[in-house]
């Protein structure tokens, strides 16, 4: 099982990821003769309190993806209620130090505004459910095996 060892950044489990057009959409774009936008790099927070993965609007805009789903979400500010949000299919890539890494060819993500919190997205339990995460707070690093 490949692993990433990442130092905590200012006490936060931050990780560099690339978000791109999903592989099925890339194939459709190639068939339509449309240029595939380059992947967008961002700093994501590993968040066990997030049901699913979120991506800041600034990264999503560059990919030009239309929504392919809707989910209902609940956050502290929704005060017990929920509201509907569009989801977008993306490819998700977490690089390691050997020019390889963890690739998810297609993942539905929620478009959010997180830039003001100093991050470009949240890695939620939809991804973590397929990984082994060890958070070593005393040694100030985390291990993500996939």
């Amino acid at each position: 099982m490949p692993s990433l060892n990442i130092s905590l950044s200012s006490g936060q489990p931050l990780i560099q990821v690339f978000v791109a057009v999903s592989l099925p959409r890339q194939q459709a774009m190639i068939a339509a003769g449309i240029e595939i936008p380059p992947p967008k790099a961002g700093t994501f927070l590993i968040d066990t309190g997030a049901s699913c993965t979120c991506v800041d609007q600034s990264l999503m805009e560059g990919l030009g993806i239309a929504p392919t789903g809707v989910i209902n979400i609940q956050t502290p500010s929704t005060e017990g209620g929920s509201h509907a949000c569009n989801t977008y299919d993306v490819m998700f890539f977490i690089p390691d130090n050997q020019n390889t890494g963890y690739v998810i060819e297609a993942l539905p993500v929620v478009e959010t505004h997180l830039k003001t919190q100093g991050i470009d997205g949240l890695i939620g339990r939809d991804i973590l459910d397929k990984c082994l995460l060890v958070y070593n707070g005393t040694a100030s690093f985390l291990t993500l095996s996939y």
Partner: protein
Amino acid sequence: MTENLNTEIETYNSKLPELLKSIGKYVVIKDETVGGVFDTYNDALKYAYKEYGLNQFFIKKISPAEQVSYFTRDFNTCQA
């Protein structure tokens, strides 16, 4: 991105009684038509792009009750 999926959502809701035999699977809907039901999100997405190209379509995990995704962190969303 503010594309409207209301037609597909209405189709999903109207077809839900018959879709419930496939709980946990993923349905692909285009306008008022159910394109197919698939075991995985990946399979549904591959079918949808192959069938509909870059046109609008909708994928939904079939569930008897609307599922809610929870977040302990607060943020602003781009609402559907």
